[in-house]
């Protein structure tokens, strides 16, 4: 089997022996739920967690839903319970707004009862893996760029080819829907776009007499001019995935990537080495904040806010993470031209996926379609940090009147590429690359001044050691 060829064995897709572990997780989940019930002394509600309460809800949904589903099918509509798990995509207002949108769905679809549960990012691998393994997975959830492909080979994700067929392809940003395709099937729907883009402090640039760079040749001397004393040109958060993601923006800007167009692992290609050598040279120049290797995202933003760093490669909404006074000075850089004339950056298509455990697939698909088309308030009111994958939502004045978001949508999103670049589609090893820590180690190595080729060789060896890497 070769993930790079976009093929996978049937055996892998149809697990042979999953009973014992699922049973174990189910028993453990049930026991934990019972313990929680005893400890709390209260009956669980839908939002009480991923154990007993949800198992009960699912069971109720299963029995009631089966009858209702039959009635719904006879009536030509979908019905039943739909459990929706959502990640925290924005500030506190996000969760309340998302709940409100779910309520709107329930009002518009009285035969379907959708429930909402918010999940923090800090524990998502455990939460979803345990839920899927113990049979208490939601019907539908949002997730990171590679969550669907992480669970799909293990038989947990429901293909949504029929749902995708009902959409107009041009209502999604170019290439985003196809990026969800694996082995000829759509495993998720893209609903949000996350992207890495350079922000700079105009006040610091002006003070140093530096114009916003348009090429890499201009960037290096600009960062040198911006560095003096305890003030540095650029910072990366090495203790966070955002470090490698920021660096990979440069790699894609240079036409590099982890894979060849044919889907073969190609870590050591010239363009990738060249881009990372450029960053390594910035480290050697002393223009990269020396705390970078140990910085979290918050540490980096603190350095940016306190004017000890003039530039960061970060996420949409970076300007909202500083004080209102500082925000006036935060500007978005236009895409730079690499040494070979390329433009580009790293992009993620956030997944909206269905789980095979759903008892009400029709109702869940109805919810998926509705959410994809009607989730505008999670940006306008909930202030979600990503951007919409649907062009019909992106055309809303909320995005078009925001100078940062409009520029990101117009200038950056069209040149964005996924982690699997330069291969197309999605494939299982990308989930391990995204989460496994090897990319973070590579970024830390470079930020600590280690040799680029040695760091990349280590990365290549780590990827080849991943269970999901085939061939």
């Amino acid at each position: 089997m070769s993930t790079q060829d976009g093929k996978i064995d049937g055996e892998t897709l149809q697990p042979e022996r999953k009973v014992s572990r699922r049973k174990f997780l189910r028993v453990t989940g049930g026991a934990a739920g019972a313990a929680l019930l005893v400890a709390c002394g209260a009956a669980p509600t839908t939002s009480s967690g991923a154990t007993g309460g949800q198992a009960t809800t699912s069971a109720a949904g299963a029995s009631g839903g089966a009858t209702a589903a039959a009635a719904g099918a006879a009536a030509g509509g979908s019905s039943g319970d739909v459990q929706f798990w959502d990640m925290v995509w924005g500030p506190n207002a996000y969760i309340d707004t998302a709940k409100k949108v779910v309520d709107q769905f329930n009002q518009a679809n009285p035969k379907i009862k959708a429930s909402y549960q918010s999940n923090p990012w800090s524990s998502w691998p455990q939460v979803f893996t345990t839920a899927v393994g113990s049979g208490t997975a939601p019907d539908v959830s949002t997730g990171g760029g590679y969550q669907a492909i992480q669970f799909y080979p293990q038989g947990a994700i429901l293909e949504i080819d029929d749902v995708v067929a009902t959409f107009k392809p041009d209502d999604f940003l170019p290439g985003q829907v196809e990026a969800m395709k694996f082995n000829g099937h759509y495993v998720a729907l893209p609903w949000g776009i996350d992207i890495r883009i350079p922000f700079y402090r105009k006040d610091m640039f002006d003070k140093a007499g530096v114009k916003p760079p348009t090429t890499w040749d201009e960037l290096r001397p600009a960062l040198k001019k911006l560095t003096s004393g305890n003030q540095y040109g650029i910072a990366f958060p090495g203790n966070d995935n955002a470090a490698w993601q920021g660096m990979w923006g440069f790699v894609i800007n240079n036409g590099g990537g982890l894979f060849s167009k044919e889907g073969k692992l190609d870590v050591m290609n010239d363009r990738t080495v060249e881009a990372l050598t450029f960053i390594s040279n910035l480290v050697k120049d002393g223009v990269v904040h020396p705390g970078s290797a140990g910085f979290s995202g918050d540490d980096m933003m603190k350095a940016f806010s306190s004017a000890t760093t003039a530039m960061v490669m970060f996420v949409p909404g970076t300007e909202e993470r500083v004080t209102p006074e500082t925000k006036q000075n935060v500007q978005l850089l236009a895409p730079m031209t690499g040494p070979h004339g390329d433009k580009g950056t790293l992009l993620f298509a956030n997944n909206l996926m269905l789980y095979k455990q759903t008892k009400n697939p029709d109702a869940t698909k109805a919810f998926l379609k509705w959410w994809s088309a009607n989730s505008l308030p999670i940006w306008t009111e909930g202030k979600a940090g990503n951007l919409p994958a649907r062009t019909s939502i992106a055309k809303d004045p909320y995005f078009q009147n925001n100078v940062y978001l409009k520029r990101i949508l117009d200038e950056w999103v069209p040149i964005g590429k996924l982690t699997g670049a330069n291969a197309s589609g999605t494939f299982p090893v990308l989930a391990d690359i995204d989460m496994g820590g090897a990319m973070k180690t590579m970024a830390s190595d470079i930020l600590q001044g280690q040799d680029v080729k040695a760091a990349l060789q280590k990365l290549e060896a780590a990827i080849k050691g991943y269970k999901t890497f085939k061939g």
Partner: protein
Amino acid sequence: MSTRAIPSPSRELRPPKRSPRFDSFPFILLLPSALLITLINIYPFATGFYYSLQDGTLLQSGAFVGLANFVQLFSMPDFLHALWFSMLFAVFSVFGSWVLGLLLALLLNQEIPARGFFRVALLLPWIIPSIVSIVSWRWMISDQSGLVNVMLQAFGLKPIYFLSTGRWATFSVIVVKIWRSFPFMLLSLLAALQTINRESYEAAGIDGSGSWQAFRYITLPHLLPISFVLWILMTIWSVNDFETPWLLTQGGPSNATENLSVLAYRYTFLLNNVGIGAAISFFTMLLLMVFAIVLLRRQRETT
């Protein structure tokens, strides 16, 4: 002559033979505990070992691979590094927290002003939830505007990025661990100090011994038995410690502070490689069992 056998008198006098009766009552009383131990200890232990012999994920059992996962561990650079770091972390944490705990215990064993207050105050690092204390440490040392660097800069020194190089991060993780652990050492050693008979010191004083000699020949020998137990317990807790390296550095930079617990978590949950994750955990358990056995033997000898 009668053919009837005459019973031997001695036989008749012997009490009738009774078959030993099985008393099940003690076993019934033991049953709940045995079930509980089986559920809490033996089942996860056996399941973990079973997983370590398979090439599975959290959702699929995978093929049986025998001891291949254990063999593979020793060819994995990240495992060898985690093993090395776990040892380093344990040795320095145990030594550092014991020395600090001992010094403070000796001090608090004296008649000093506000001794009661200090006895309580010094327990705070042990009482504060780890998430609060470790994140606070992170704020203090992670960047140039943290408290420690502000103080360094006030003295005209350059800021130190404690979490940004492998060596400084290793040092920082150990320091935080020592800070979190010394109160336990302090409490235990202080209790032991208070059991030493004052007359021993008075006798030593009459014989002309100084304070160092009193410490060397009276205090230290008295503290050694409890210290031995503390060293072993602290070694087990250090090797098993997940939250200190994870919350402070997430095992970075460049895996410099990744111990066996963090590595097992990474393989199990982030890489979904349960076989290797379980093998790391099982190996760690075997390693710690050596210490536990030594501790149990020691306790048996003492008893």
